């Protein structure tokens, strides 16, 4: 159960990403063309519920199942890092219609050619590691 719960959480994630159609290239195109509320509705609902939960956890100092405090690590402030990195990510997201999670959900769904996208993503991650010290952060 110690590790099984993560597989189960992943299964629910795979199912919800598929059933919400968030794994579809069509839905991502519709979002970037501002032609439907669907994707925005998903993201905004998740953020609103998530933000309320985070505030409650902080206010009441709620602990995790192991009894440890739930900690939120603030990300280091930077503009170029998030703006440039985010823009590169967005280019790929609109091109493939898949962010990292949906790549794998799509593969499980039966789209074998997703492996090409996954391979590209692994190579991209590797190249970031190689070039990291030369990039503005």
């Amino acid at each position, binding site marked *: 159960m110690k590790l099984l719960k993560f597989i189960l959480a992943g299964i629910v*994630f795979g199912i919800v990403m598929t059933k919400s*159609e968030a794994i579809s290239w069509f839905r991502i195109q519709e979002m970037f063309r501002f032609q439907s509320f669907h994707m925005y509705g998903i*993201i905004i609902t998740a953020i609103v519920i998530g933000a309320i939960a985070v505030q409650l956890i902080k206010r009441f100092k709620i602990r995790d199942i192991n009894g440890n405090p739930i900690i939120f690590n603030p*990300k280091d402030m930077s503009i170029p890092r998030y703006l440039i*990195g*985010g823009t590169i990510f967005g280019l790929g997201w609109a091109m493939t219609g898949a962010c990292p999670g949906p790549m794998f959900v799509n593969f499980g769904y039966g789209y074998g050619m997703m492996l090409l996208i996954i391979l*590209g993503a692994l*190579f991209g991650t590797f190249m970031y590691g190689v070039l990291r010290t030369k990039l503005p952060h």
Partner: protein
Amino acid sequence: MIDAILAPWPWYTSGAVIAGIMILLLFFGKSFGFSANLRTMCSMAGVGNKVSFFKFDWKKQTWNLLFLVGAVIGGFIANNYLSDGSTVAISENTIRDLNAIGISAPTEVQPTEIFSWEFAKTPKGILFLVLGGFLVGFGARYAGGCTSGHAISGISDLQIPSIIAVVGFFIGGLLMTFVFLPILL
């Protein structure tokens, strides 16, 4: 009830379930961020000896890799056991605009012009898919997170860096959609 599960889920159900997963992972003592798995997989491949960015105790990320395995299984289950075969009901405007760049209306989850072996076997297809993935992988690590880490977890915690990252996601997404995709496809 069964019909509602088999049909595509409305945005509010989906958003609530995604938030539920994020909250559940917090209670498990973890933080929701899918693209960290790509870094872990590079580390597992042994590149940590050459590139220090991948030199870390990847075994601590085992839980996230299991989450990834679950995500693959979830996609399989949703397609084979939880589907009523409905196509993606995107708006008429999107169908018309995509037609103009050579993508026909949905008959399945993904456009067959991109996600079929006929395309994926051609040099152009391989380049398109690998390059697209490359941008996602490179950008996610450069920005320190993807949709789950920044747009969901980060903004839920009202983090400014995550808001900047999401602005970036949209700059890139709009550039691809309106400038590059019409040329690439």
